[in-house]
């Protein structure tokens, strides 16, 4: 008998208040409550977090690696978007 597999979930943990939730890995669970419980057991055995998000993996849309150039290269030559692009005359402060 082929068994249906429990769905895959992605786990995000906020390690301390003031920080973003960060992707830490994935797990299998039948529903959100089980995913939450498993995330606690699997990724928080040593006080690694103060908050957990779980998201069904199938709900995440990811960019295609072959679109890397078209998505990210256009920012490459826009150095004027960085403060270091600008000359500030000597003697000018607090800018």
């Amino acid at each position, binding site marked *: 008998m082929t068994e249906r597999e429990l769905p895959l979930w992605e786990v995000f943990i906020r390690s301390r208040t003031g920080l973003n939730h960060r992707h830490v*890995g994935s797990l299998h669970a039948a529903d959100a409550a089980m995913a939450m419980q498993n995330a606690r057991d699997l990724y928080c055995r040593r006080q690694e977090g103060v908050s957990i998000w779980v998201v069904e993996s199938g709900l995440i849309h990811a960019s*295609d690696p072959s679109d890397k150039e078209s998505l990210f290269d256009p920012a490459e030559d826009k150095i004027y978007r960085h403060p270091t692009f600008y000359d500030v005359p000597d003697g000018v402060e607090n800018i």
Partner: protein
Amino acid sequence: MYTQGLDQSDTRTPGPEEEAQLVQAFQARIDAEEKIEPRDWMPDAYRRTLVRQISQHAHSEIVGMLPEGNWITRAPSLKRKAILLAKVQDEAGHGLYLYSAAETLGTSRQQMVDQLLSGKAKYSSIFNYPTLNWADIGAIGWLVDGAAIMNQIPLCRCSYGPYSRAMVRVCKEESFHQRQGYEIMTVMARGTDAQRRMAQDALERWWWPSLMMFGPSDSDSAHTAQSMRWKIKRFTNDELRQKFVDVTVPQGHFLGLEFPDPELKLDEQTGHWNFGPIDWSEFKQVLEGNGPCNAERMRARQTAHQEGAWVRQALLAHAEKHEDIR
């Protein structure tokens, strides 16, 4: 599909010329120490090698719970029991981190588990040895986890991103495993004569199987060269084995224990401990399923899986019902 964000995958099949270019670009990324991520193009052989290695590694963590689990109910104190429970729970976690790393390569956990249960997939030969008394729990933590750490630290730099990230997490947790084992050995080596004899006996039984954990000698290791080129492996089996011997022998001597190897001798020139020949026929036998506990381990995993089937079904049924209500 079972990979993170695999709502779109690369379905193109490149022609031979394009394939050659892709392989070249892939190797260039590896050479530049770039990490390969799940949806990046990769040669089929790289994917297959990783699935095999990571799933074997995961199976080892899971089967590895059995010899130690054997002693949880008989740990000599509440403290030791709590420690052993935590360690065995960590090993379950390691197995799960690794299964999910392997799943990012497109093989489902169920496929991997099926391969383990059908006997098609391998796991580390060390877990086919029995844990006869409490000193074995000390020897396993000290030697088996010690050897595992030696193997795993370089894997933190493995070229495949999900595997390397899983290994970073695993390595963080492993050092407590080794220390608790060495502490058990220390207590026993400094205890009564009987305890001391148990510690010595455990070392004698676990030493050679621990050295075999690093796998066949470089001259007999089929996959080493390609895995090194792909930066899946950073050191050869023999290099890692030697490192392990060099750090472990002084730890044993510190406890006044003797290694079961008359040829063990410090080479003053190189600073390395020379050791006697490994009985590879024993290794082969265990790998082929004829070790002392192979059948028992497989049976335990199969039974656990079968007996858990109704729970998995009930969980899914509950989730579906819940969805209907929502």
